[in-house]
């Protein structure tokens, strides 16, 4: 289908702005790259325009995140160009259920686990992942994403849902594995430029390694007992694992933005915030008004001072702003976390 560009360069499409940034670091000027979800847009609520899909139909490779992040978009891509989809996170090991302390808050997440059971996790990339605590994934999708899992259901027959936290980019270590996947895929399709891709990839991996080290250092100023995260929903599984944080809970225990908090769960979370003296709540920039308000309410209501801090979650910011590339995106989040917790 579709016309091939006269230019012999690979036609590459990437879903989120973060993936686009990483792919562009590897592919450089030897590929024609089109990012579908531009900076500042939410990956989940993204509604494509027809010409974006025309690009997808023409593409030699379509990079998507995996773990069902761009669920709505995915179903379109799958119906338009199913052969050339590459999930950049396919080497990422999904996380075990590891972050909850044994308090009652844990109970809130049972539904989640239960959900796993129902979910169709017969993953086609099985070799690489286990099911893990995944409901976070759902959490996320739901939350900022307006897009349309409907389609997903609709395509149930051919698409198997992945389970696992889709926010793989929250740890640079995972993004290093992305780079490997990207280099491999580009090389497969365009062996002539293999060495170019490989050297770009290696250079970028060095930057990522540096970022990782910098984060380790910077975050280490936060005392051990203060390394606790309360977010709008769980999107820090990988971050917590790699930088030794504890996830205490999230404002929305449900799995979608559409789900509301139950009042008792909120009451428990408040008790918890008070007991542990947690200093900050982190809210994704694309979280709904309702969630932001709830965070402010809890911060006011707690017996100590709680900061409500904004984090970048699913998308880069517009060019020129802080957080317009993956690396500055992570540095911004790191700063927010340090300033929120290290008080």
């Amino acid at each position, binding site marked *: 289908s579709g016309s091939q560009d006269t230019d012999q360069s690979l036609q590459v499409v990437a879903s989120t702005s973060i993936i686009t940034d990483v792919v562009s670091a590897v592919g450089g000027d030897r590929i024609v790259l089109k990012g579908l979800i531009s900076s500042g847009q939410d990956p989940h609520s993204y509604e494509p325009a027809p010409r974006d899909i025309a690009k997808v139909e023409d593409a030699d490779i379509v990079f998507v995140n995996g773990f069902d992040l761009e669920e709505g978009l995915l179903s379109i891509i799958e119906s338009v160009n199913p052969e050339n989809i590459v999930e950049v996170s396919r080497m990422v090991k999904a996380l075990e259920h590891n972050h909850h302390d044994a308090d009652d808050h844990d109970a809130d997440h049972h539904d989640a686990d239960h959900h796993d059971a129902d979910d169709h996790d017969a993953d086609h990339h099985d070799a690489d992942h286990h099911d893990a605590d995944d409901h976070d994934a759902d959490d996320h999708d739901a939350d900022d994403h307006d897009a349309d899992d409907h389609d997903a259901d609709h395509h149930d027959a051919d698409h198997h849902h992945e389970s696992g936290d889709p926010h793989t980019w929250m740890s640079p270590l995972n993004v290093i594995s992305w780079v490997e996947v990207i280099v491999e895929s580009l090389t497969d399709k365009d062996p002539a430029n293999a060495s170019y891709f490989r050297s770009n990839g290696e250079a970028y991996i060095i930057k990522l390694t540096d970022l990782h080290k910098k984060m380790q250092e910077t975050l280490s100023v936060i005392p051990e007992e203060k390394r606790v995260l309360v977010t709008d929903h769980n999107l820090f599984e990988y971050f917590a694992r790699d930088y030794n944080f504890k996830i205490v809970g999230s404002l929305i225990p449900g799995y979608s933005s559409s789900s509301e908090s139950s009042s008792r769960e909120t009451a428990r979370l408040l008790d918890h915030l008070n007991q542990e003296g947690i200093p900050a709540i982190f809210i994704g920039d*694309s979280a709904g008004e309702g969630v932001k308000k709830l965070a402010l309410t809890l911060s006011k209501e707690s017996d100590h001072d709680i900061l409500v801090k904004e984090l970048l979650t699913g998308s880069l910011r517009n060019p020129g702003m802080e957080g317009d590339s993956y690396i500055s995106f992570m540095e911004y989040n790191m700063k927010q976390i340090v300033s929120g917790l290290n008080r």
Partner: protein
Amino acid sequence: MAEWILEPLQYGFFQRGLMAGMIVAFSCGVLSAFIVWRGMAFIGDALAHAVLPGIVISIILGIHVLIGALGAAMLSVIGIGSLTRHKGFKEDTAIGVIFAGAFALGILLMSKVASFKDLSHILFGNILGVSTFDVILISTVGILVVLGISLFYKELLVTSFDPTHAQAIGLSPQLIHFGLLFLVAATTVLATQTVGVVLVMALLVTPAASASLLVKKLSKIIVLSTCFSMLSILLGFYISYYNDLASGATIVLVLTLFFFLSLIVSKLRNK
């Protein structure tokens, strides 16, 4: 029992949520009878969606979303009001046309503005995140609604029952219609932010529908529907607390239960 009642009340967010819910329920319960009997059931749903372009524009302009939302609601109200003037156009058709158009416009604007992406706020407010300021705002609208309905009760009555007679005595049915739409719009815009559109929609329709099954006089319908709506907020709030359920949805289900109970009672009575 006392403890059962008091336990959640120790939390400020529960108190405020309950308070805000009760006030919204009161406003909606009062409006409900007219909404149901004038065939405007979907006005709440429609306005909550039609408000989208206003929200997007206010974000672009950097003004408070509430201003944009209210502005868009008022424009929609004018559109709906002018369309129903065309004799023969059913109210719901006018509402539907404006709703779909305004919402689509909002979506397009939004996709061009990018930073604002969350539509789900339209469906669900967060009744637990209600601030004291919200409670004050909602109370203001509640007072406006009660004042509006009680001051213009006879005008609402005559324009609903016989618009031609209203016109013949020099009363513009359209003006009253606009007034009612204005009250509904203010309620919907504010209430949607706190309790979500599904709940507002349910509160605007189900109470009066239930009450109409049981009593026949308009004033009694209004009183009973206000009782239904406030009771369902109270019950729904506690049920959702003790069963870890989403509050908004629980309240709507309690309301729906009241409706079916009323239906059964009325069937038995007519036997």
